[in-house]
């Protein structure tokens, strides 16, 4: 049989963002087809916002067939909580909130001396997964974020303790995702695995996705600690030797206010942010997440414990 070697006719160019979007939609549909009780981790951060946008695309014109789960450290930026609640209402979604504070009150985790609550999220997350019997948990993790994620799979099998054993992870070939598991286990799914930070922003720009305002430059009272600008809040504030000053800053990542630093910036639009990041010297986590600095293998250790 003779074959022509001409490329097939295309409507429009299938770009990188198209390919990443299609892959993420494919992954979400796979989960809907193979699991009983998926849930989407939603923090109000840009990666989870993009994930929700993709979920809405994947199942249109039907509703998103899963709930949102927010592991609330209690140290959230008020703007992000407001965004979360507005989003849930706008799209008629069901939100499950797991409170770190509850775990502290129950004595299941202890407040850390430095006040940071990011490391405490693991227990309430696993409790929520067990209570609601979620068998697939969507996370916005990307492989470019941090060294330990470079080898993460799209489908990451977690045992009944939520633990991740790098030696047990399944090979992932083609687009055949194997999520079969034993009762009590669950699978973390990362549809943004192949997206970089810049890809996420370019997609936000292309799709005109609205984000919490703190991602753009604004004036805020901050103080310096450990090479980061921190904002005071319910979690705490400047010590006697730290001075509060007003700076024009934005956040590259949102998390626990007590350990998420702002960066000085004049970027007030998505295009500005993209230009800034493209020229930036620091990766997203390194710039602003104090908890990753503790040890180079910090993320890997936390994943073994069942964290995101």
């Amino acid at each position, binding site marked *: 049989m003779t074959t022509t070697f001409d490329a*097939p006719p295309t409507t429009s160019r299938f770009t990188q963002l198209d390919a990443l979007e299609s892959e993420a939609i494919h992954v979400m549909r796979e989960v809907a087809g193979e699991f009983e009780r998926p849930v989407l981790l939603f923090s109000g951060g840009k990666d989870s916002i993009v994930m929700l946008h993709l979920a809405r695309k994947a199942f249109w014109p039907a509703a998103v067939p899963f709930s949102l789960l927010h592991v609330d450290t209690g140290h959230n930026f008020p703007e992000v909580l407001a965004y979360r609640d507005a989003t849930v209402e706008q799209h008629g979604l069901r939100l499950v909130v797991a409170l770190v504070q509850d775990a502290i009150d129950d004595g299941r985790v202890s407040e850390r001396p430095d006040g940071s609550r990011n490391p405490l999220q693991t227990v309430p997350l696993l409790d929520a997964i067990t209570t609601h019997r979620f068998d697939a948990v969507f996370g916005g993790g990307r492989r470019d974020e941090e060294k330990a994620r470079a080898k993460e799979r799209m489908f990451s099998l977690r045992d009944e303790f939520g633990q991740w054993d790098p030696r047990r992870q399944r090979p992932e070939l083609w687009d055949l995702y194997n999520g079969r598991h034993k009762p009590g286990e669950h699978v973390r799914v990362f549809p943004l695995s192949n997206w970089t930070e810049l890809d996420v922003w370019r997609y936000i720009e292309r799709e005109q996705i609205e984000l919490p305002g703190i991602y753009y430059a604004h004036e805020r009272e901050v103080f310096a600690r450990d*090479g980061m600008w921190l904002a005071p809040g319910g979690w705490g504030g400047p010590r006697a030797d730290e001075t509060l000053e007003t700076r024009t800053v934005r956040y590259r990542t949102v998390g626990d206010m007590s350990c998420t630093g702002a960066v000085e910036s004049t970027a007030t639009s998505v295009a500005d942010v993209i230009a800034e990041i493209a020229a930036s010297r620091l990766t997203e986590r390194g710039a602003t997440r104090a908890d990753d600095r503790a040890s180079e293998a910090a993320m890997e250790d936390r994943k073994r414990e069942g964290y995101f």
Partner: protein
Amino acid sequence: MTTTTPAPEVTPPIDETAGHANRELLRLATAGSVDDGKSTLIGRLLYDTKSVLADQLSAVERATAARGAGAGEVDLALLTDGLRAEREQGITIDVAYRYFSTARRAFVLADTPGHVQYTRNMVTGASTAQLAIVLVDARKGVLEQTRRHATVAALLGVPHVLLAVNKMDLVDFDEATFRAIADDFARYATGLGLEDVLAVPLSALTGDNVVERSSRTPWYDGPTLLEHLETVPVSDARADDALRLPVQVVIRPRTPEHPDYRGYAGRIASGTVRVGDAVSVLPSGKTSVVTGIDTFDGPLEVAEAGRSVTVRLADELDISRGDVLVPTGAPTTLGQDLVGTVCWLSERRSVLGARLLVRIGTRTVRALLREVDARLDVDTQTVELLTGVDTLHTVDATDTSSDAAPSSLGLNAIGRVRVRLAEPVLLDRYAEHRGTGAFLLVDPTDGTTLAAGMAGATLLDRLAPEPGGPDDADWLAGAGI
């Protein structure tokens, strides 16, 4: 301590804000060992395309110093280290994904170790690749591991191979040395059925011909490595590819806005679908006409391979996850005898007669492993036919010794198998349909992925001595459509 945002010391990335909207994505695979400079090459690609940002670089500078190198040196290879155990042992033990890009194109690189005990990782990394970078050390030429990597690329149907002849700086950028290696590999590649091979003389350490064109290879007028990556076609789709749309989920909103909407959602694995096309649903064989191709962003008149869409049909048919939409009247094969080549991915050996699950497209079917009748040695590119094997021979699945029954496949083994499926499915040859001709063998007791498979004749059959192997007679044994 100053906490102002530091001014960038590196020059702004290449043309970062213009032209990205139209760039495509290319998936690559590399394999190699610590000795042949693969990690340095990848580090160089990340570094020269400004895809490495400063704190990663600082960490590498610290790590380089900690290993006793001179001050200010950056061991580019350390940019790609990951897990703690690896860093401590100084080796890479898994498939790692690296991301870099230029204004013209974005890349996803699946990076695997090259030792034979990581064959399964190479197979994994190559499965989605459009291009494989095979590395050779210019001082050593084509080695067993070079042939192994090329064999895996050929087996997995990677359409393009780039032979990176590295460490040219250590052979004084000698043309004759390069040509000898390129020619040696070219002869070899032809035997494997690799049609598109480009050899590039380069040095990852000095950067010659990786991203920047070298002034020390005036005799070479081919592209730099990056230029080739930026211009090779991202897809091997062809105008005559037949439609394959595996159904993932059925979309039925049952809302006031869409009370009767019924759409079949999936990502087009090959070919093109147009509104008005006559399609058949396999395995049932029922036919209908496409009345709509929907996306969140609006309806399409036509959609090609790679796009995720939701298709509406004129008739209300019983279609579910696992079914495949194909063009009505095009030749297809339905069958229950799946014959193909697998790479065994598990430490549990294969067991003849074992109950398995086969995952093929979006379908999962119960199956039995009937026969293992040939094995491919990736190091020697020879195929051993296993004839006259007692198919009732019991094998201890946990036996990892090399003298376990030859008809049992162990970790990293590549063999030809016959699997009996509990129900008929669409059987596509992997060589023609990389999307629907691939399958997994799964252990039903705990879901472990046991093996990765490619249906139909593969490189194994090309290399096998006669007789044996799937041929048209096997394929057409099932009911055709």
